[in-house]
């Protein structure tokens, strides 16, 4: 199977970033159709499409849109989660940079469907180039009546603002993102059923829809071509429809973003990325939060939300990293643990303490000072974090550590017992941080 470019069809053409070039490539046909449609009909098309959120959790998009109150009594808000921070993922960045109008059109369609007056795109602070491209596109859309008051004479008013983050992975979590947008530390809020859903009380306690960049970017083609048409893509899978962009990196020959139809095999994705440099050892298919899979499971893996579950992993955000035989799983897991320990927001104990303990234990192992029982200790900590944390970051910190120990127990055992890595190659040694070098030499 080859790439299936729905979102990326014109991504390589710089003209596509301008309103003129976008219109020349059938841009805004979706919005024009949508504003002639009843709001519910737009939501029904989204339902027929089977689109699930592309931010990581795979929640059906139409259910969110349908959840917003139909009798509008207060302002409704739309938020785009463009805080892409999941290690391994870089698709939203390219989408914003190269196809800014797809996102703007998608959000405007959503604004019509849920009667939103105002939208915010919350962009990760580091993504200045992506933000500049969006800025130029938004300014142009305002100049030509595609944003602002009475859009295309339809009576729809919609203002769109850019808001930059300032360096915090946790702000990708939707309630933390809203806290941050409201000028607070990026800490999450209580969730349903303990608090109302964002569709009832989100930003400033008003009804709010929050979706990922890629999710919104899918809306124009769904409305233009119809939900049923969209649902024919990925029909070979259980419940994953359409295309999905995967960011492929690691030891591959041609790293980059690849848009594929659900139902494609993981090995085909690897082929699209030019195949391996060296021999495939391990893959993290959906961003750092999902459990890794070994080479054998890679051979069987089919890309789909349920299908990836069958090999013990997830589609996640689509940050797919392939690694070769010089990869020390223990060192990799240590670095993963460091990420979560640093990014934990500190609000709840299991995650704040647990991520630090995991890092401490992994740190002593990679320095060659692992102790008998460390594997059990790590596993027990992952169990105390998973499902007991205030937000998804805790779970996301526990899964990769537990996954690595389950898939590669012998590498952990060896490291702890011998005080050095089982992967004993000059290449592996060259990758290790200086403090860990002792554990990567045979002498």
């Amino acid at each position, binding site marked *: 199977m080859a790439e299936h470019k729905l979102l990326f069809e014109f991504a390589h053409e710089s003209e596509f970033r301008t309103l003129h070039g976008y219109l020349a490539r059938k841009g805004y046909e979706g919005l024009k159709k949508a504003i002639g449609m009843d709001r519910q009909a737009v939501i029904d098309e989204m339902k027929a499409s089977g689109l699930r959120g592309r931010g990581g959790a795979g929640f059906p998009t139409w259910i969110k849109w349908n959840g917003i109150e139909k009798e509008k009594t207060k302002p409704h808000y739309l938020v785009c989660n463009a805080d892409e921070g999941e290690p391994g993922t870089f698709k939203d960045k390219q989408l914003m940079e190269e196809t800014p109008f797809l996102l703007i059109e998608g959000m405007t369609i959503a604004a019509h469907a849920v009667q939103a007056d105002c939208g915010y795109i919350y962009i*990760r602070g580091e993504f200045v180039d992506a933000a500049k491209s969006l800025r130029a596109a938004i300014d142009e859309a305002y100049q030509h009546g595609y944003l602002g008051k009475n859009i295309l004479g339809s009576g729809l008013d919609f203002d769109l603002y850019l808001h*930059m983050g300032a360096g915090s992975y946790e702000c990708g979590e939707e309630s933390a993102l809203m806290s941050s947008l409201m000028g607070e530390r990026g800490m999450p809020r209580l969730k349903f059923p303990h608090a109302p859903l964002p569709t009832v009380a989100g930003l400033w306690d008003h009804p709010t829809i929050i979706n990922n960049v890629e999710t919104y970017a899918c809306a124009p083609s769904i409305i233009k071509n119809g939900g049923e048409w969209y649902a024919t893509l990925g029909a070979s899978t259980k419940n994953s429809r359409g295309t999905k962009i995967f960011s492929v*990196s690691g030891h591959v020959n041609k790293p980059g973003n690849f848009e594929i139809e659900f139902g494609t095999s993981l090995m085909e994705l690897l082929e699209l990325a030019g195949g391996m440099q060296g021999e495939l050892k391990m893959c993290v298919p959906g961003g750092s939060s999902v459990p890794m899979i070994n080479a054998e499971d890679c051979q069987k893996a089919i890309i789909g939300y349920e299908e990836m579950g069958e090999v013990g992993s997830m589609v996640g955000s689509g940050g797919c990293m392939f690694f070769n035989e010089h990869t020390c799983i223990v060192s990799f897991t240590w670095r993963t643990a460091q990420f979560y320990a640093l990014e934990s927001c500190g609000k709840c104990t299991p995650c704040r303490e647990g991520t630090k303990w995991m890092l401490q234990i992994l740190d002593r192992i990679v320095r060659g000072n692992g102790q008998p029982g460390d594997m059990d200790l790590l596993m027990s900590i992952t169990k105390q974090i998973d499902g007991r944390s205030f937000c998804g970051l805790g779970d996301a910190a526990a899964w990769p550590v537990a996954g690595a120990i389950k898939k590669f127990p012998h590498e952990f055992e060896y490291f702890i017992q011998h005080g050095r890595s089982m992967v004993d190659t000059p290449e592996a040694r060259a990758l290790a941080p200086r403090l860990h070098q002792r554990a990567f030499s045979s002498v």
Partner: protein
Amino acid sequence: MSELIQVGASRPKAPAPDQLELRFSAKAISELAALRTHYPDNKSCILPGLWIAQREYGGYLSPEAIAEVAHRLGHSYAEVEGVATFYSMYTTAHAPGRHMIEVCTCLSCHMCGAYRIVDYLEETLGIGLGETTADGMFTIHEVECLDACDRAPVLQVGDQYIGPVDTSAIDALLNKLRGETNSTVVQLADSIVQVHLRDTEKA
């Protein structure tokens, strides 16, 4: 316990209200005014306001810079300081060098040799991570995934990503930056402020 008291004692003190010297330029004041129209609530201007301050105060959110944002937005110093210290891109601990080199050592970059890049920078500049060269030119940092793993190992300077890098790319980068008179730290903050504003709102 005593350690905790020590930590508290070394926290930078907020300037007293009557000692507050406002330093925002006319441009910054009009940018902040435009930003207020973007949100129903002033508080949302704290993050973009801190970006403005980071630019106006030369790349460093000193207690004075934080106090000015708090004053202009009508929020307490503690609240604004709390926000500023949460986010890694605000520089609150100490003034950075003219150029901040942020090396990603996260997963893909780690597995593509990022730690050798860190070593090379440390050796060449004679400083450790988080430190600034004596001439105030460079600060180096290790950062989490920059979401450019297709360019691993990658680093960020100002608003630009550079990668994949090797030692000769680092040499070339350092040379180029030495000849650069403007601070890329300030330039990054300015770029971030600018993207918030519509063409009709630019000062």
